[in-house]
């Protein structure tokens, strides 16, 4: 994550509940790789072996105990599962300010496993909750800041999020481009790309032809890939950043308030574009009729460089309003 962020920047939404409004004092998520002690006779050092499983945990602490609608007690007290077959919750959280293009974390399969209320002499009553994640925890980007929309339809395409300029995007230094067709680009550190991704090359000098710009990649090793360019004079330096991605991803929406005003529902959509000119539907969520509510929608295949969100009220009515957050996490 680029930069440092303080507590005013944090936000946390679970199943359409906005937990920032509950004045929570802290929140965290933790990912750990599970391991097993494998120390035996003859070993002089404690030994651990990874089991191949990861575990994620989310915790919100110190929120004020509040039984008013859509506050922490509402969000957590009834969410501790009473049966083994209950569906997991959907959460979105961020440590950077919630603005379009800033990082967020999306979670599906979150189970509230403990909820405690702490009364104290001379102090306000507080409530804590801990959730375990069985499912998906993904890093992504905010597309629609949590806020109200009152039109019949609208979108963020005019302020689309360019993956190459996202706050959390990594610029990977280039060592060289080879004299070859297709040219082989070598990076100084593992590039983390997948064949079918595209990259934006910038600042690369000396090559003929100039290969700066967006190029589709074919991965040949962890630090090399080819792009479809016949390079006759090799170049050096510059950086690459990921542009489009080939492995799908998941869209998230959190609807914290909804006034249909006669409309039957509101449909939220995440859209993508390769050129920031024409946008196509990428994830269409099930039409929403109630709040608080949340949805996650997964897609496979290519996710283009530019992302935007859209809302549309269905039917007819007046005085409509939907308050929501939308984000997308690339796989």
């Amino acid at each position: 994550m680029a930069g440092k962020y303080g507590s005013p920047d944090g936000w946390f939404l679970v199943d359409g509940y906005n937990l920032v409004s509950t004045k929570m004092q802290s929140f965290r998520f933790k990912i750990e790789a599970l391991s097993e002690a494998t120390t035996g006779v003859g070993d002089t050092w404690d030994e651990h072996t990874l089991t191949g499983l990861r575990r994620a945990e989310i915790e919100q602490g110190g929120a004020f105990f509040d039984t008013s609608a859509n506050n922490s007690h509402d969000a957590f007290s009834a969410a501790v599962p009473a049966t083994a077959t209950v569906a997991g919750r959907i959460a979105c959280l961020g440590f950077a300010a919630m603005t379009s293009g800033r990082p967020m974390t999306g979670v599906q399969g979150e189970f509230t496993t403990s909820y405690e209320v702490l009364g104290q002499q001379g102090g306000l009553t507080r409530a804590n909750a801990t959730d375990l994640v069985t499912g998906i925890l993904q890093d992504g980007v905010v597309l629609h800041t949590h806020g109200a929309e009152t039109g019949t339809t609208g979108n963020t395409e005019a302020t689309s999020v360019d993956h190459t300029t996202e706050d959390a995007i990594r610029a990977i230094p280039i060592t060289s481009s080879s004299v070859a067709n297709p040219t082989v680009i070598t990076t100084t550190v593992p590039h983390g790309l997948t064949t079918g991704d595209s990259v934006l090359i910038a600042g690369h000098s000396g090559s003929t032809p100039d290969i700066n710009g967006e190029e589709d990649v074919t991965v040949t090793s962890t630090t090399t890939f080819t792009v479809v360019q016949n390079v006759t004079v090799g170049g050096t330096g510059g950086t690459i950043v990921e542009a489009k991605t080939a492995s799908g991803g998941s869209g998230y929406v959190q609807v914290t308030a909804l006034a249909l005003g006669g409309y039957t529902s509101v449909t939220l959509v995440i859209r993508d574009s390769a050129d920031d000119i024409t946008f196509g539907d990428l994830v269409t969520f099930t039409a929403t009729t109630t709040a608080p509510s949340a949805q996650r929608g997964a897609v496979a295949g290519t996710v283009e460089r530019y992302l935007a969100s859209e809302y549309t009220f269905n039917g007819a009515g007046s005085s409509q309003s939907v308050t929501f957050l939308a984000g997308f996490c690339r796989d």
Partner: protein
Amino acid sequence: MSGHDFEALVRLTAKDGSVLALPGDSCEKVPEVSLGWLAAKGSIKKRGPGSGPKKKGRLTSMFGGAPDTPLTTPLPPAVRDDTGDPKRRSEEE
């Protein structure tokens, strides 16, 4: 490459939010610069031969008469002639 040659498989819009094509529509309003990546992604597909613009509404008489009655009764099934000899078939009848 022309948008007429393609059919949208998803809803496509311009940056101002205006709808360029709905699923099944021709992509004539889609900027040519976007057709390549939309086809590569599978958001549009090449139209088959003879799949020109669809005409809406009922057919009317070629000679300016009253509109033709819409065809609601299915045609009778074709009679199969195993011999392939039309002459023999008419003789049997």
